[in-house]
C-alpha cells in the first residue's frame, strides 16, 4: 500500500495548537489541539487531544476528541473518546463508554487505497 518511510513518531503535546495541514509518513500522536487536515500512516488522538477536521490514515486510534471525518481502514475508538462526525472504515472497534455521534460508513479496503494517493483532493 504505502512505502513505510517510518521515522520516530511525532508527538504533539498538550500545550500545542496547530492550524493547518499536517502530513506525515509515520506515526503521529496528538495530545494537543489541531485544526485542519491530518494525513498519517498511524494517527493517535490521545486522551486530551482534540482534532477539528478531517483525518486520513491507515490506522486511527481515538482516545480524545474528533470533530470531523476520519478515513481509515482500521479504526479504534477508545472509551474516553468523543467523536462528532463520520468514520469511514473497514474494521472498527468502539469501546464501551465512547461518545459517538454520527455515522460510521463501511468501505472496502480498496476505497482507502485510492484515498491514500490523493488525500488532499479528497479532504
Amino acid at each position: 500500500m504505502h512505502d513505510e518511510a517510518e521515522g520516530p513518531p511525532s508527538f504533539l503535546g498538550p500545550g500545542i495548537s496547530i492550524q493547518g495541514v499536517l502530513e506525515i509518513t509515520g506515526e503521529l500522536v496528538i495530545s494537543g489541539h489541531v485544526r485542519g487536515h491530518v494525513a498519517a500512516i498511524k494517527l493517535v488522538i490521545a486522551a486530551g487531544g482534540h482534532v477539528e477536521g478531517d483525518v486520513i490514515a491507515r490506522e486511527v486510534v481515538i482516545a480524545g476528541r474528533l470533530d470531523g471525518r476520519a478515513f481509515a481502514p482500521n479504526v479504534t475508538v477508545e472509551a474516553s473518546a468523543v467523536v462528532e462526525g463520520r468514520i469511514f472504515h473497514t474494521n472498527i472497534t468502539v469501546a464501551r463508554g465512547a461518545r459517538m455521534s454520527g455515522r460510521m460508513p463501511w468501505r472496502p479496503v480498496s476505497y482507502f487505497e485510492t484515498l491514500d494517493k490523493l488525500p488532499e483532493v479528497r479532504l
Partner: protein
Amino acid sequence: MSLFNRGDKSGSGPQQPERPQNQTRPAPPPPQAKAEAVILKTAEPPRPTQAEPPRPAPIVQPPTPTTARTGAHMPSVISKTLKIKGQLESSEDIQIDGDIEGDVRGINVKIGQNAKVKGTVYGDEVELAGTIEGKIESKKVTLTGTARMTGDILHQDIKIDSGAFISGSLKPEYGKSDSKPTLKPVAGGASANVSPLSAAARE
C-alpha cells in the same frame, strides 16, 4: 491490541504519575529541596563546613520551573517525516525535525539539523541547527555550526557557532519591542498616524 496499549500510554501519560520517571527528578526534588533547605537552616549552625548557602537558593528556585516543566514532561516532537503547513503554537518545549511552512510560537524551540522552517519562529529560546527561511524573534538564540538562517534575527542574546550560515541582519532589539505585543500597537500607531495626516491633508 498493541495499538490499544499505545493509545493508552500516550493518552494517560499526561495525567499519570508515570511521567515523573520519564523526566527523572525534576518533580521530586523540589519537596526534598525544600526539606533540605529547612533542615539546612536548622542544621546550619552546627555544620558551617556544609553551609553552602548558594545551594539551597538555586534548588529552591526550581519549583516554579518544575510547574512549567510538568506540562512539558514529554516535549513535543515534530519528526522528520512530518510536514506542517500552517500556524503552530506551543506553551511547552518543541523539537522540530520536520518541515514547517508557517509561523512557530513556542517557549523553547529546538530546530534539528534536517529541519526546515519557512516563516517566523518566536520563542524565549531558539536553538537552530537546521534551516530557517524567515525570521527569528527570541530572547536567546543559538545557531550551531550546521545552521542555515536566511532572514533577520531579533534577539537579546545570541550565540553563533563557526560554520553557521546567516544571510540577514542581527538586531539586538528583542526586549525593546517586546516582540509581538508592542509590534501590533506600533503598526496601529502607524496607521493612526496616517489617518490624521490624511485628515490634515484634506483640511
